[in-house]
């Protein structure tokens, strides 16, 4: 009822909400994250442009580490399950998500895909996101770390053009470095400089899935994430030392924004 004159006209009420629009996705992502942490699985959200070499780097990872570590994968794409097929052929049990027209994966899709995959005993679950440098950056999937594959063929200023993707990354894999001799105008230091202007803690790792260059460092970085996840004296020591390589950083603007993804902190109970 209108409070001014008591007539039956409806009143207009302004209701303050001040809540994140993607709160629903974030709830599901937290749920996924708890599952991964409970089982000691490092979930890696692997993003990048179409053709940046995401699947190839996972194949190379499987060949290099599949005998030592149990791996699993979820592959997202608009259509086909060709990426999942390639990963299975490389020895990684993989589920595929055909998103239809959606340009990104979200936490609910991951939650469903987990039911179709034996992931609980794995060391690493790789989530190969839809090839896209815009949309996937917006959605928390419950991952422990975000890795962006950036090919040497994409241009030195790519990070400047897609700042949101890179600011939220924990590691950037500079892929296809075996092509550098054929790309005389591409300078790795220029890419690193561009990255430093959009990513406060830039971590750039040049790799080649074809030649294997850089793979040892990539596997070492992954193992470091595993140590972070485990509640071990090593994790605590790394935490105390404030080692950047261990705890992934999310730029948290205010407390009501993204939940902390520092697994070491959560495990230690902070």
């Amino acid at each position: 009822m209108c409070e001014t004159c008591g007539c039956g006209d409806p009143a207009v009420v302004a209701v303050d909400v001040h809540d994140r629009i993607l709160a629903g996705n974030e709830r599901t992502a937290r749920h996924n994250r708890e599952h991964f942490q409970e089982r000691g699985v490092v979930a890696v959200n692997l993003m990048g442009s179409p053709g940046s070499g995401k699947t190839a780097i996972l194949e190379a990872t499987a060949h290099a580490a599949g005998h030592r570590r149990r791996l699993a994968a979820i592959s997202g794409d608009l259509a086909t399950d060709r990426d999942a097929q390639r990963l299975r052929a490389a020895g990684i049990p993989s589920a595929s998500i055909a998103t239809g027209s959606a340009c990104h994966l979200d936490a609910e899709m991951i939650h469903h895909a987990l039911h179709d995959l034996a992931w609980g005993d794995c060391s690493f679950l790789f989530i190969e996101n839809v090839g896209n440098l815009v949309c996937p950056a917006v959605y928390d999937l419950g991952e422990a770390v975000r890795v962006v594959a950036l090919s040497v063929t994409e241009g030195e200023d790519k990070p400047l053009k897609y700042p949101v993707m890179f600011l939220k990354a924990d590691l950037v894999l500079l892929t296809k470095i075996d092509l550098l001799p054929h790309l005389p105008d591409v300078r790795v230091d220029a890419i690193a400089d561009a990255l430093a202007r959009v990513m406060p803690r830039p971590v750039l790792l040049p790799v080649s899935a074809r030649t294997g260059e850089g793979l040892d460092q990539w596997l070492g970085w992954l193992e470091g994430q595993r140590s972070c996840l485990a509640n071990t004296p090593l994790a605590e020591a790394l935490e105390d030392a404030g080692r950047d390589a261990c705890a992934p950083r999310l730029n948290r603007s205010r407390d009501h924004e993204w939940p902390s993804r520092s697994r070491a902190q959560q495990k230690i109970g902070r």
Partner: protein
Amino acid sequence: MTMHEYSILRALLDRVEAEAQAHHASAVRRIRVRIGELAGVDPELLRSAYSLLRERSICQDADLEICTMEARWECVRCTRQIAPGEILRCPECATPARLASGDEIVLEQIAMEVP
């Protein structure tokens, strides 16, 4: 390819409808959202998605106000501002910068008609 602004709009409208129901509202007059420059959401695409998705909903006559927030980087130690385009480390103490604002995707307020 569907832009993700559609899925964000869908989440927004679901929330607005839920709030409207909770308040027994008969119509929504205005929705105010805050979108940061580095949120990864294009305000104009969001507006386009809104004009399509609000049809035949409780929001069909509601105005969508989009407040955009500039990206602001600052040093966590000395709160010195770091200009966009610069290296994201404090020029004084080399501490990595923090994004103080600019990544918001927030529903701020709903104005609705209640009996």
